[in-house]
């Protein structure tokens, strides 16, 4: 909570929303804070939309680019968060792509923001999303020589993998924190909980 936060979304930003609604098939405007909003777009419209935002509306800074695995719906949600320094406004563009098969691919944005290359390398490694035409996207990012399911996909069982690959030291016990503290550390205060 910053004190100099804008109380209400300024008029200029409403104009941006209006313009986007007029030009692109965006939907689902969600104003989470006065200085932060989210819009949903079709995957084919994301690149023109981001180009327009960057060139016309001054959203020149890519804050981050990440994905969310919505395994129940069978999609990855890609989130492009762009920032406008003049209006001090964050705009998140959300697009959905299928998790499996040939559709699990997205157009590269490294021509708009060169730094996006690193995000795309990470998404390729951690989620298995392909970015055709993106340079260096197949290089290792954090994992070196990974040959299993990409670990950030929710169908990857990290505990099972750890037990299979790294040697678990026997004798590890997990105590239920609350119960343990009641019994051993603060017995006199236990009845007040």
């Amino acid at each position, binding site marked *: 909570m910053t004190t100099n936060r804008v109380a209400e979304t300024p008029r200029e930003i409403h104009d941006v929303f209006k313009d986007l609604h007029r030009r692109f098939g965006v939907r689902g405007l969600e104003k989470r804070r006065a200085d932060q909003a989210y819009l949903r777009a079709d995957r084919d419209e994301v690149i023109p939309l981001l180009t327009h935002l960057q060139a016309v509306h001054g959203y020149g800074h890519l804050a981050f680019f990440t994905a969310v695995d919505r395994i129940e719906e069978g999609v990855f949600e890609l989130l492009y968060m762009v920032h406008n320094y003049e209006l001090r406004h964050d705009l998140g563009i959300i697009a959905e792509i299928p998790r*499996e098969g040939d559709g*699990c*691919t997205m157009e590269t944005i490294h021509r708009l923001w060169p730094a996006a290359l690193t995000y795309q390398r990470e998404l390729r490694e951690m989620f298995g999303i392909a970015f055709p035409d993106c340079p260096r996207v197949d290089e290792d990012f954090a994992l*070196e020589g990974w*040959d299993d399911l990409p670990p950030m996909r929710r169908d990857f069982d990290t505990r099972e*993998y*750890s037990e299979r690959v*790294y040697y*678990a030291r026997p004798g590890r016990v997990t105590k239920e924190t609350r119960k343990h503290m009641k019994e051993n550390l603060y017995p006199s205060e236990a009845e007040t909980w």
Partner: protein
Amino acid sequence: MADATTTTRTYAERGAPANAAVANPDPRTIAGGPVAAPAGEIATSPKEADVRTVDGQLRIFTEQLKLANEGLAPEDRRNFCDHPPEVIKPFRGTWEKFLNWARSESLWILGFGTGCGAIELRPLMTARFDMYRYGIQPRPTPRQSGVFVIGGYASVKTMKRIVRSYEQMQGPKFVVALGSCTINGGMYWDSYNTINRLDHYIPVDVYIAGCMPRPESLLAGFVRLKEMIRAGECEGANRYAENFEWYKTNQKRIIKNWNMPDYNW
């Protein structure tokens, strides 16, 4: 590009990864090894052995006492030694005691913070805790150092650098593992990317438990290490040489893109 798309499609169809059943070829070395060796495996001719697999490289090692260095490019291979490390027996009697006293009084630690616990090394250097009064000081390179402090969790990517650095240190060398993560994985015990037991990859002399241990605990650990060195109990480098195959199997099982020499002097 096309390659990445292929990856996306094939991993779902694939079953267990190829590394799932790498056997410990020498179960004699350390009791309670991870997997028992299949019978008759070591007896295969080295010519038939596929040098690209861990088993094949270890077969060459077992039968010819040579390191395959298969991870290196052919033109680089001649730049690296193909001899495995050798056991250097300690002297007997007073001379070794004198050497051990001298070693324990000048512990030079490798300034390589491998995890979050390395933050505790900074206060150690300051006036409040002042590790220099114990004869401990940091050195910039592995070849100048005698003590390797593993600062907490070790990811597989770091493990690769830890192995290289450890092998470059000159013997006798000591390893102090600090934090719960090096003992049993700590809070990262079920992570896909951090190891659970450091002593399966390099020999460890002293563990300092805690998440993370205070500088006082580190000093206590160093004092314990000094006692152990004086008692002649810190033979980690020799243990590494004796159980070289076992350590290498464990290391190669997790470090999948092994593009470094098999032993790095």
